[in-house]
């Protein structure tokens, strides 16, 4: 295809992606170097019949002028990245300089907002991905043994947790895990602890969020593995059986190697997607016990009194760096495949 025709065809797509993906990323990088203006305070004397008192208040007019002149705020360099709400360099230094052993260091670092979010994001990412894949694989093997008539309805039900709006799905589970909901109440009576609730127990919050993650991500692996199972070479399976391989040995040495490339694909996609975990934190109102990097950005943007664009932007940049690290294996794989095709 000649260059000219190619660019005419692809121009609208490229324009949309440049305007709304490339530019925002650049804009985020620039914004992360700025902080919002400090409040301009003025002292006014307020006289009433009972005497005069001086009050300090925010000079709204001056603030508006400042905002109009420099909408991005003040230039701050890397201050946003290093402050307490992000990498917290000073705080970490203080903790490392003066602490009571490893447990103390871990606990105090975990209390810093950024590291709290980072640890949940990573745990979610690296626990949910393999567990959901294992669940998906098990469902795929099981559904594959079903008679034809039952397969359709089972697949239908199985893909519901994946297709559901993430916020809606997490709300549905959150209501069931509510202390007055069916699962929350059952948990309370099973453990004999009438105060057990998501709000009160960080451990329970993490477990429930992970359960939600596996529930909603499992079906994707299931669908992919189920399709992969249909292409397993039956000759190899037969000959392995003739050679005396047990059912488990056939699964382990014939089926699993056949599905390995698919598994890599699923793992890479799911790691990237799980790294941006966000809606369940909102849906489960879990922010007191578990936050994620995406949630931190969201929280800065919906800020009660002022939107912290600089702070949101620096968390965004750190998140993007994290995504790029997770993305390297995918890019290398695509690169290799392209070169193989080209040869």
């Amino acid at each position, binding site marked *: *295809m000649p260059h000219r025709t*190619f660019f005419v*065809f*692809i121009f*609208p*797509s*490229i324009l*949309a*992606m440049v*305007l*709304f*993906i490339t*530019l925002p990323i*650049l804009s*985020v990088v620039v914004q992360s170097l700025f902080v919002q203006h400090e409040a301009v305070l003025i002292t006014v004397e307020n006289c009433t019949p009972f005497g005069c008192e001086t009050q300090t208040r925010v000079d709204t007019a001056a603030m508006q002028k400042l905002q109009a002149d420099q*909408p991005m705020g003040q230039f701050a360099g890397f201050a946003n990245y290093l402050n307490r709400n992000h990498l917290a360099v000073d705080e970490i230094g203080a903790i490392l300089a003066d602490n009571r052993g490893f447990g103390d260091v871990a606990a105090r670092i975990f209390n810093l907002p950024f590291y709290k979010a980072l640890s949940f994001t990573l745990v979610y990412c690296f626990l949910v991905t393999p567990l959901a894949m294992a669940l998906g694989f098990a469902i795929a093997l*099981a559904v594959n043994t*079903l008679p034809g008539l039952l397969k359709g309805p*089972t697949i*239908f*039900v*199985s893909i*519901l*947790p994946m*297709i*559901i*709006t*993430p916020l*809606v799905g997490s*709300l549905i*589970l959150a*209501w069931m895990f509510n202390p*007055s909901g*069916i699962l929350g*109440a059952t948990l309370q009576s099973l453990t004999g602890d009438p105060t057990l609730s998501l709000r009160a127990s960080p451990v329970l919050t993490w477990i429930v969020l992970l359960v939600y993650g596996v529930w909603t991500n499992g*079906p994707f692996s299931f*669908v*992919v593995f189920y*399709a992969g199972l249909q292409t397993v070479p039956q000759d190899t399976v*037969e000959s392995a*059986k*003739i050679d005396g391989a047990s059912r488990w040995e056939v699964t382990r040495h014939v089926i699993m190697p056949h599905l390995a490339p*698919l598994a890599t694909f699923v793992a890479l996609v799911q790691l990237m997607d799980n790294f941006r975990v*966000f*809606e369940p934190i909102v849906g489960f109102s879990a922010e007191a016990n578990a936050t994620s*990097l995406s949630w931190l*950005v*969201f929280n800065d*943007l919906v800020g009660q009194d002022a939107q912290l*664009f600089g702070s*949101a932007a620096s968390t*965004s*940049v750190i*998140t993007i760096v994290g*995504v790029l690290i997770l*993305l390297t294996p*995918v*890019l290398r*794989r*695509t690169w290799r495949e392209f070169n193989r095709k080209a040869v």
Partner: protein
Amino acid sequence: MSVATRRPVALNALILAFLVIWVIAAAFPFAWTVWGSFKVEADFFSRQSWWSAIEGTRTQAQTGGAFTLAGYDGAWVKNEFWKAAINTLIVTLSVTLISLTIGTLGGYALARSGYRYAFWILIAALIFRAMPHITLVSGYMLPFFQLNIWGVLPTTIIVLVAINQPFTLWMLHSFFLSIPKDLDESAMVDGCTRFQAFRMVIIPVMWPGVITTGLFSFLLGYNDFAVTSMLLAQENQTMVPKIASFLGSIQNEGNVMFAVAAVVSATVPLFILVLFFQRQIVSGLTAGAVKG
């Protein structure tokens, strides 16, 4: 005839038990919430026993019937959820149509260009596909405020189209690769221009791939929370951010049931979608995977 294909009874029982548990885990939350949405709060969130949600004791006492539409009335009529539903309809349909139109052209060009820059565009799309949406949103807010285009539906639609493009391009690119090159090339030998060949030869055979891709565009627009909740003003909200804002005002008695009813209402279209397009959704997911 295959050797030893009969499974032992114990294994069959195990498989069946596992599947039953999974099907319950997958379906029960939906069934429970749909059922509960027709009850009052004291039943759905019963302090005594979840059995009262099934029998509807409080619902009976408060409304006189075992089922009540109070939640739906509160959400759809009192809180104007219908407006949000219309907005969702506008947003998702526009996103799907625009994504597909420009994505088909782009995906076709990528599939037919043998040059290296086509590959680089695909790599860039892959990176863009991985970007967390909320980080992009934090880049939009300030410029959109400055340009005074924040809060309205068209802005959100275009943003969702753009966010959706990388995926659409990849999907349609690999779909067009599966349509033989000879088809449009022979049309061009017969005197068609590239665009005529696309219109008269490719468009008639591309619908299966376009429908599958369209389903995923629809889902992205429908399921989005990050973009719609941050970029839409209160009066323009679509269903998902509207549900989130119900939660903000949850303290008031009865509001939880408004949210439950709204959640169930937002789930119904997805059910219908899966019911009719299960085959396409499954094949779309696997197409991406099998081809890498």
